[in-house]
């Protein structure tokens, strides 16, 4: 019978400060300009609705985009509420642990096989 695995990775080393700083910098500098792009688009959409005749062409792609964007915003909110971003580095250790466990299973991981034939 198959059972559920408890994947507690145990203690993981605390994040070094520099790395956290890096992540924050990336969020600010990478997402900042992107937010600017989004804001500009939204402003243009408002203008289209206010009667810019040439802008009528643009409504379909922008509405498409806004629908997709709203969907992702909701997903983002759901993820944040459900603790997906808490202990943010944990998942990467768990993933490796699971893989290691699977590779431990007899006969399943002929990982050496690639090199075994290197003489040819």
């Amino acid at each position, binding site marked *: 019978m*198959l*059972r*559920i*695995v408890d*994947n507690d990775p145990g203690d993981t080393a605390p994040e070094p400060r520099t*790395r956290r700083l*890096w*992540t924050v910098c*990336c969020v600010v500098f*990478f*997402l900042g*300009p*992107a937010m*600017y*792009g*989004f804001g*500009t*688009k939204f402003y*243009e959409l408002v*203008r289209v609705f206010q009667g810019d005749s040439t*802008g009528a*062409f*643009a409504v*379909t*792609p922008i509405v*498409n985009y806004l629908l997709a*964007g709203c*969907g*992702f915003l909701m997903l*983002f909110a759901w993820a944040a509420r459900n*603790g*997906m*971003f808490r*202990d*943010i580095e*944990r*998942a*990467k250790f*768990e*993933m*490796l642990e*699971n*893989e290691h466990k*699977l590779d*431990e*299973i*007899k*006969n*399943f*991981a*002929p990982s*050496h*096989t*690639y*090199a*075994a*034939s*290197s*003489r*040819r």
Partner: protein
Amino acid sequence: MSPPVLDTSTANEPLTDVDRLVDRRIVLCYYGAALTYMVISMLGGLLMALQLVRWNELQGIELLSPGRWRMVHTNAIAYGFLANAFLGTLHWTIPRLTMRPVLSKAFSYLIFAAWQVVVLATAGGILLGHAQAVEWGETPVWIDPVAQLGLLLVAINFMTPIMAARGPMYVTLWYFMAAFVWTFLTYAMGNFVPQYVVCGTNAGAIAGLFIHDLVGLFVTPLGWGLMYYFVPILLKKPIWSHGLSLVGFWGLAFFYPLQGIHHFLYTPIPMFLQYGAVISTIAVEFVVATVIVNFFGTLKGSGREVVTNLPIRWFYTGMILYGITCFQCALQVTLTFQELIHFTDWVVGHAHLVMFGVFSQWLMGIMTYLIPRLVGKPWYSRKLCEWHYWLSVVGIVVMFLDLTMAGLFQGWSWSSMRIWDHSTQVSEPFWIVRIFAGLSMFGGILVFIYNIYKTLAGPVEVIAAKAQPAV
């Protein structure tokens, strides 16, 4: 009832239980189909390349006319090679990441069969002249509903184990989840909206979104997701920063979908929309930078692996070419640069670089790693694996440089207002070089297929369970 979950806490788990988790046969079936379509696509590419130097042995046969071969070439790659290779690899990756099998094995085989029908019908439809007038959406209109249904089934089959997994999700699963939703929506948007709902410039704008979203919301998330899985596993250490990888994911989610219009700069699509696409492209450049920084951060301290570990070499070669592709994008997206390179071979070089140089090479690396595990035998020949790598890489790099230069010469010829024939004369040497570059890539694939065949035909070797990899 919740789906069965594998307990891996004991090292002596019977093999059959692990096989319940990953169905290796379906992965192999997908890889077989993918490589078959790669051969067909490359034959189509070679025929097109020969046509461009006015050597067409099929002259006069309407069914095999160059325009149709060209569409077979691109569609066989997108829906035949990439989709099949991705689907096969997902059957390995998702169960191992979630520790849960996909929804249903029978379902998996049904999807496999249905997808091959879709691809074959697309090839047949194109050759018979039924192509839909949407770039990359040439799948004939009568097969679109089947393809759409197939994508829905794919999403259901894979989302079941993902949704059942608990705790904060690894970035790969975020990418996969998004890809299933995006691909379904993108396919519907590109194939049905311009066909039945809107027309004219509006349809053009939608088609622009479709071409780019297919690359960015189907191929990119699956490719990146797979790299976030395979690179740490092969390097035996976690990704440099999981937080940064999530910044990349959410950045892609919010800022990718609007940049498709950058394919249509200088068209009658309203200028503000074109500028919007330019800005969101720049935003995505930043997002891409987070991904590249993360992978090279992970490699830090393990640089030798790139020399000794062939799958890792495939991955990081793809990564470098990815950087080059994105650098090109930064140039291409400016209106000034577009003036020079639009409609030239520069774009064709760019397309080959990203489709073959990046995503196909990542998939080749994955296959090189997985095939021995799938068949339970070592590679017949490591040397042939090396040949596969070098023929492919040399081929694509030469093709990319060659077409990039061809594009510049064509652009300069057009902008100097010389007669059209001048630009084709200038292009001819480059087109000849392209044929040889293509032959090199084709040779690589043939070598790979031969190696797989010999590996399958070889004797089963008893495998020591904990032998260390020396890849």
